[in-house]
């Protein structure tokens, strides 16, 4: 979703209106219903709505979005780890990857739309059937206590998404009755979608795809030229 928006930002649609009353109205209604719990919001005209809410209001936000505002369709729920990857891009790395790598500074993280103060954020997307309105909701998860309220009381379908987020990021959803692993074996250790989770195969073996890269047509291949001379 953020990717789409970024692409559009680079090449704005000609038809995109300067303001979007319908989406502004959604934000206004949500702010009225939730009060101070709305921390920040962003409306991209014709595209989407991003709203960041307070951690304590996460469950209540779902309740309001579904029952008071008609966002009855639950799309997905997941999380983001904003820590920069300690491994860099494996594809660019030299053969020797230092392991374990030095942890990057949390301050280097670039927060996404509507900002953020913590390493982990949960995000969820809901939609209003019969319209093209979608609402992307975010909330910070405190660094020292990775807990946040559950959405399962409002959207039953969120249960599996919360199980996945729990095993992949280690975030606990309070009130979710069944946070067993869903994709990983039950004795799996670690949280694979955290940035510091090592892909051991890549530590042992450099990225094999790099040897397949051919020079672009027209690019001078210096080494080969020297051999010819």
């Amino acid at each position, binding site marked *: 979703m953020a990717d789409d928006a970024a692409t559009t930002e680079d090449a704005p649609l000609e038809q995109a209106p300067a303001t979007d009353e319908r989406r502004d109205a959604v934000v206004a209604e949500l702010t009225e219903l939730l009060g101070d719990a709305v921390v920040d919001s962003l409306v991209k005209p014709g595209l989407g709505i991003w709203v960041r809410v307070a951690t304590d209001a996460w469950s209540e936000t779902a309740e309001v979005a579904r029952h008071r505002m008609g966002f009855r369709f639950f799309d997905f729920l997941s999380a983001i780890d904003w820590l920069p990857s300690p491994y860099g891009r494996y594809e660019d790395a030299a053969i020797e990857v230092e392991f374990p790598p030095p942890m990057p500074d949390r301050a280097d993280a670039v927060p996404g739309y509507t900002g953020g103060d913590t390493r982990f954020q949960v995000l969820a997307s809901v939609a209003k059937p019969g319209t093209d309105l979608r609402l992307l909701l975010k909330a910070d998860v405190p660094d020292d206590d990775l807990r946040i309220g559950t959405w399962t009381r409002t959207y039953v379908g969120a249960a599996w998404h919360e199980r996945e987020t729990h095993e992949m990021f280690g975030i606990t959803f309070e009130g979710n009755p069944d946070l067993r692993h869903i994709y*990983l*074996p039950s004795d799996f250790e670690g949280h*694979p979608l955290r940035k510091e*989770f090592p*892909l051991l*195969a*890549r530590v042992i073996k450099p990225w*094999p795809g790099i040897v397949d890269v051919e020079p672009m047509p027209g690019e001078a291949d210096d080494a080969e030229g020297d051999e010819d001379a």
Partner: protein
Amino acid sequence: MGLVESGKMPKPLTKLLNLSRKYSVWAYQWGLACCAIEMGAAFASPRYDVMRLGVIPFPASPRQADLVIISGTVTDKIVPAIRRLYEQMPDPKYVISMGSCANTGGPYWDSYSVTKGVDQVIPVDVYVPGCPPRPEALIEGIALLQARIQNEDMAARWKGEQGQEPIVVG
């Protein structure tokens, strides 16, 4: 079966039995990912049609199967099920590992959840490389396996002494 166990099978009888086994291979389908589509094409479509080779792809359970085709990505979570499937099959039993994922992990070589080759869990008789392999490749693997079955020494197989190298298609 006393003859087989003692290794005193007359040669013509061995040949006859092997011929029968070769042309009635009951193949259990273990489709785990996109390779299963190619396996389906090889098995069910009139264009390829493995039944003309005497391969019957409809055993009701692994207990009726002679051959299992592991086609697709093997994850750590499904490994216990594959192990149990293999143990349920009666001897003599054969395994075809179809596609890059089942062979080595393939494009998921660095994944946290994918098993790097089904041969870490069960012995493999035929490797069919490809991502995914075309149905012809799978059929070639089956044909090579049938050729091996034809020349098998049943007594050695029965005693588990047959230490043959696995077949690699292509």
